[in-house]
């Protein structure tokens, strides 16, 4: 599958099938700090991603404190 990450923007190829939570563990991403979006749909941690999927891991953390 193609995995898009931002800040900085980069793309990875990861073999599927793989559950979302396993993908996040493999990439060492804290699941509390991201959304996982397949196509234009949100997916939960137990969803299984296939080889053909295009997935965005979107950080949800904003830095402003004011």
């Amino acid at each position, binding site marked *: 599958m193609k995995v898009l990450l*931002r*800040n900085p923007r980069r793309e990875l190829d990861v073999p599927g099938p793989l559950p979302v939570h396993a993908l996040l563990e493999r990439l060492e991403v*804290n*699941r*509390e*700090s*991201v*959304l996982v*979006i397949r196509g*234009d*749909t*949100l*997916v*939960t*941690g*137990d969803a299984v991603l296939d080889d053909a999927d295009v997935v965005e891991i*979107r*950080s*949800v*953390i*904003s*830095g*402003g*404190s*004011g």
Partner: protein
Amino acid sequence: MKCRRCRGPAVIEVRRHNAGFCGSCFLRHCREQVRRAIEDHRMIAEGERVLVAVSGGKDSLALWDILEALGYEADGLYLGLGIGEYSPSSAAHTRAFARRRAGRLVEIDLPTDLGFDIPTGSRAANRVPCSACGLSKRHLFNQAATEGGYDVVATGHNLDDEAAVLLGNVLRWNTEYLGRQLPVLPAGNGFVRKVKPLVRLGEREMAAYCVLRGIDYIVEECPMAEGNRHLGYKEALNAIEERSPGAKAAFYSEFLDKAAHLFAPGAAAARADLRSCGQCGAATPGEVCAFCRLRARAGASS
């Protein structure tokens, strides 16, 4: 995973509620959390005019959307900060959102209207950029609300923001800041009431709300915020949250229930001691307010 409410397929899991939600039930959940926050903390009374501080980011656009869905009369206020390519992009997201809404968008542009931008101002005043930015926002939001006759300013500070600020204040035992770290700051002494209706929702929920509502927010992070202390506190809290879901919400809500009142007298005393700024009239502890000093140092003409 199934939706806790309708038992249909879930699209988002909220671990601190030990629940999954489908899209429509999740949107309802978010609106209910905001309605509860507004009612519990008496943030907005019926018929009051609300000015929502919008940045083009997920929290503020979602807040504006939810307030309108709940029936409040809410206009948006966008502040252009003059930050490289980031500010034009955040303005474009905000304007595009506003065009789809009935609410009016008020705009202030720091470089055009006040003669300086955040990078210049922060360097000149020897402040970190987020400090100069926060100071400018607080000053200009209050001024715009006062001049526009609004009853209340609503900001998109969410549970993660408040928990991170609380952690920072506790690490330094900053008792004056702890005394005013509340979901509602009442009007008085030249200040319009300020409210934070998203305090019952985390930033992951706000991002999910935007995705599910089709709100096109600016996903890129502000370049000036990179590596700041606030982000470090959020990372630390998320590391705890991953092992112990609900820890962030408990940290913040238990502070409000059990400790915030202990620090209130110090904050109230500091507020009562304010006078009017000799240049702009805003409330300040000194002769000239921090915003006017920042503006002067940035070399802007008044």
